[in-house]
C-alpha cells in the first residue's frame, strides 16, 4: 500500500474549492459540549420541584425577618404595666386592641408582648446567627483543615490539640464559654465559633489527605507547583460537594444550638429577641397558652427543615456524578 496517493489537484481558480489558512489557535481547541460546573449544579438543583418551593419559602421568611422589623419595632415591654394584656389568645387580643391587626394575629405573651412581632424579630436573630457562625466556622475550618491535611508537621501539632479538645463534650465547652464571656449576640457567636471550627477542620483534613495523595496531585507536585496552587486548584475544586454537604448540616445546626442553649438558660440574653428564649418562656404553660408556644416552635422547625432539605439537595446537585 505504498502507492502514491492519487490526488488530482484542481485548478485553483475552481469556484467550488478554495484554500484556507491553518489556524493555530483553533486547532488547539477541543470541540466538546460546553460544561459549566455551577450551571450544571443549579440545573440539577432546580429540576426538583420541592427545591423551588423551599427557596420561595426561604425567601419569604428572609424578607419578612429582615425587612419587616424596619417598620414594626418589637418592644417586648410595651404592655408590661397593663396586666389585662397578658396571655391573651389571638381572638381576645384582637378584641382588646380593637379589631383585626397583624400585630396581634398570634395573641400575646406573658408580658403582653406581641407574639407575631417577637417571632419576626427572633427569626432575624436566628438567621443572622446561623449565617455568621457558619461563615466563620466554615472559613476557618476549611482553611486550617486544608493546611492540616496538607502539611505533615502541622498535622502532628494539630492532632494533639484536636485529641484534647475532642474529648470534651460540646455542651460543656459552649456553656462554660457562655458562662464566662456573657450572653450578648456577639459573645454568643464567639462561644459557638471558638472551637466550632475544629470538628470541621478535622473532617476536612481527612478529605484533603485522601485527595492529596492521588496520582494527579502527586504529578503536579513533581512538576513543582507551589503549595497554594495545589490546594486551591487541585484539591479544593474536588471538595466542593463535601463543603456544600458540611454547610447543609451545619447551617440548621446553629439554630438548634441557639434554641437549646437559650432554653436551658445559657443562650442569648433577654435583650436579644430569640426563638429559643420565646420557647423557653412559654414552655411551662404550653398546654394552657398554646398560641405563645407553638408558633415559635413551628417557625424554628420550618427554618431548619427548609435549610436542611435545600442543603441536602444542593449537596446532591454539587456532586458532578449527578450532572449526566
Amino acid at each position, binding site marked *: 500500500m505504498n502507492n502514491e496517493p492519487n490526488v488530482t489537484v484542481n485548478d485553483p481558480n475552481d469556484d467550488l474549492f478554495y484554500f484556507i489558512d491553518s489556524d493555530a489557535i483553533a486547532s488547539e481547541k477541543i470541540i466538546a459540549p460546553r460544561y459549566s460546573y455551577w450551571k450544571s449544579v443549579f440545573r440539577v438543583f432546580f429540576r426538583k420541584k420541592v427545591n423551588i418551593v423551599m427557596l420561595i419559602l426561604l425567601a419569604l421568611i428572609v424578607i419578612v425577618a429582615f425587612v419587616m422589623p424596619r417598620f414594626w419595632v418589637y418592644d417586648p415591654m410595651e404592655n408590661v404595666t397593663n396586666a389585662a394584656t397578658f396571655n391573651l389568645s389571638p381572638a381576645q387580643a384582637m378584641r382588646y386592641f380593637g379589631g383585626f391587626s397583624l400585630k396581634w394575629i398570634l395573641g400575646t405573651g406573658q408580658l403582653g408582648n406581641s407574639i407575631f412581632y417577637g417571632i419576626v424579630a427572633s427569626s432575624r436573630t436566628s438567621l443572622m446567627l446561623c449565617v455568621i457562625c457558619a461563615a466563620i466556622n466554615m472559613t476557618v475550618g476549611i482553611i486550617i483543615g486544608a493546611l492540616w491535611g496538607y502539611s505533615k508537621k502541622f498535622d502532628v501539632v494539630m492532632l494533639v490539640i484536636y485529641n484534647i479538645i475532642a*474529648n470534651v463534650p460540646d455542651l460543656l465547652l459552649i456553656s462554660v464559654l457562655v458562662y464566662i464571656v456573657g450572653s450578648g449576640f456577639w459573645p454568643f457567636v464567639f462561644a459557638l465559633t471558638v472551637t466550632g471550627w475544629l470538628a470541621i477542620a478535622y473532617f476536612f483534613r481527612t478529605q484533603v489527605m485522601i485527595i492529596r495523595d492521588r496520582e494527579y496531585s502527586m504529578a503536579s507536585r513533581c512538576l513543582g507547583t507551589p503549595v497554594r496552587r495545589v490546594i486551591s486548584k487541585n484539591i479544593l475544586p474536588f471538595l466542593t460537594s463535601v463543603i456544600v454537604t458540611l454547610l447543609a448540616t451545619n447551617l440548621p445546626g446553629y439554630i438548634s444550638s441557639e434554641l437549646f442553649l437559650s432554653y436551658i438558660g445559657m443562650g442569648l440574653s433577654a435583650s436579644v429577641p430569640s426563638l429559643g428564649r420565646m*420557647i423557653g418562656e412559654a414552655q411551662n404553660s404550653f398546654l394552657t397558652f398554646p398560641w405563645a408556644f407553638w408558633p415559635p416552635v413551628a417557625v424554628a422547625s420550618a427554618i431548619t427543615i427548609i435549610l436542611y432539605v435545600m442543603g441536602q439537595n444542593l449537596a446532591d446537585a454539587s456532586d458532578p456524578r449527578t450532572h449526566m
Partner: protein
Amino acid sequence: MAKYLVKRILFSIFSLLVVVMVVMLLVYTFISRSVIFQTDDTWNKKSGNDRSIYEYTMYQKYGYLTYVDYMTFLANKYKDEVGEDYTKDKAFIADKNVIQKKDECMDNETVQEFIRYYAEKGYEIKYLEPETFKSGRVKPGGTGYLLAVHEKNPLLRLFDYVKGFITIEKKSDVQDEALTDDMRYVRFEKDPYSGLFAIVGSGTTHKYLLYFDNRFPFIHQNWLHINLGTSFTSYRGQEITTVITTPTGDIKPRMTQFPAKLGTDEWTESAINFHTLRYTTNVSEGDAELYPDNYTTGAYFRYGFSMLENSFVIGLIAVAIAYAVGLPLGMLMARRKDRLGDKIGNVYIIFIMAVPPLAYIFMFAALGTTVFKLPYKFANAQVKILAYVLPVLSLALRDIGGLMKWMRRYMIDQMNSDYVKFARAEGMSEREIYRIHISRNAMIYLVHGIPGTIIGCLVGAIITERVYAVPGVGNLLTRAINSHDNGIIVACTVFYTTLSIISLILGDLLLAAYDPRISLADEGGGRR
C-alpha cells in the same frame, strides 16, 4: 495491643488533666467569686468584718486561697514559749488585744513579726480595722482581724484537686487519741446484718469497708472513695458523688436492731443503713447506748432511685428500643429503596435530623399527654411505670431516626460493592446476601458508637429531663452554671470527659474485635 492501650490511656489522662486545668483556670479566674454568697443565709446574717472573715473561710474551703489568722499565729507562738496555759499570759493578752486598737497595732512587735514572717512567704497582709461607733463601742461584727492571705496558684489548685481525687481508707485515718494503736485494725468479720462476712475496719472512717446486702449490685464498698468535687452553692458543701448516687425519695424505715442491741430481742423501727456507719469523735449519751463503738453516723435508706439511676435506666431502655427498632427499619428501608416505605422513612429521618430536638420533644409531650393521656410530669404520675413512657419514647424516637439514617446509608453503600455482585453470581439468595454480607458489613460503621451510647446514658438527657421534670443527672451541669457552682462545673468536666474518653476507647476496641481487618496498634503502612 497492650502497649497501644497503655499509650492511649496515658494520653487520655494527660488530656483530661489539660482540660480540667483549662476549665479550672477559666471558672476560677474569670467568674466573680462573690457569687458563692448569692444564696447563702449565713452570709446575709453576718455583717462588717465578721462577714469578711466568713468570706475568707469560704474562699479557703472552695480552694480560692489559703489564709492564716493572726490569732492562730499568736496561739502557736505562745504555746511554744509559755506552754499550755498561754491564754492567761499577760503578754499574750496584750498582743491579742492590740489588733483591736487601730493606732497602736502596726507598732506592736509581734504584729510586725507576723507581717515579716508571712510577707517573706509571699502572703499578702490584710488588716481588717475594728469598726466602732463614735462612742468607742465596737459595732456588731466589727471586731478587727489581721490576716495573711495567699491566693492559690492554678497549678497548685489542680494538684490539690488531683491529690484528693481518690482516697483509700486506712486504719490510721481517724485522728483520735482515745483510739490506741492496738485498737486499730482492718479484718474479716461475720456481718450480723447480712449473715455473710464483711471487711470491717476500726480507725478507718467507715466501719464496713466491704459488705454484702440485698440491694443491687449486692456487693458494696466504702474502701475506695472518689471525690469529683464539692458543690459550692446548689448542694452546699455536699460532694457531687454523694449527690448523684443518693436516692431522691423519702426515708424508708424498717424493723431492725441497733448494733449494740444485736443478739437481744429489742427491735426498733429505723431507716439508718448500719453498713454506712462513720466514725464520730464525740458520741452522745443516747447513741452510746445504741452503738458499741464510735461508729454512730450513717446514711438513711431511701425510697426510689438516685439521680444517676434515674437517668441511666431511662437512657438504657431508650437505647435498647432504638437499636431493636432502628436497625431493622434501616435495613428494611435499604432493601426497599425508593419505594413507599423508604420514602416514609426518609420523611421521618428528615424530621428528626432537621427539627430542633427541643421542638419535637414538646411535640411528643403534647401528643402523649393529650391523645394518649400519659402522665406529663414525672413526679405527678399515679402509676410510676407510666411516668417512664414519655421520657423513654422521646429519647428512643430520636435515636431510632439516627440509626435508621446511618444503617440505610451504609447498607446502600455496601449493596453496590463487588462482593455482593459476586455472592449473587454464586447463587446466594437475596435474604442470605442481606443477612450475612450486607448487614454485617454495614454494622462495622455502627459498632463504634455502641459503647458511647450506653455510657452516654450516665450523662442523662438535658431537654427530656427538663420537659418531664425527671430527677436525673442531665441538668447537673446546666444548673451548676446557672447557680455559679464552680465545684460542680469542675466535677462535671471530669465526669463527662472521663466518660467520653472511656467510650471512645471502648468503641475502638469493640470495632477492632468486630472487624478483624482493623488493627489499632499497627500505625505503620498507611498513609501518613
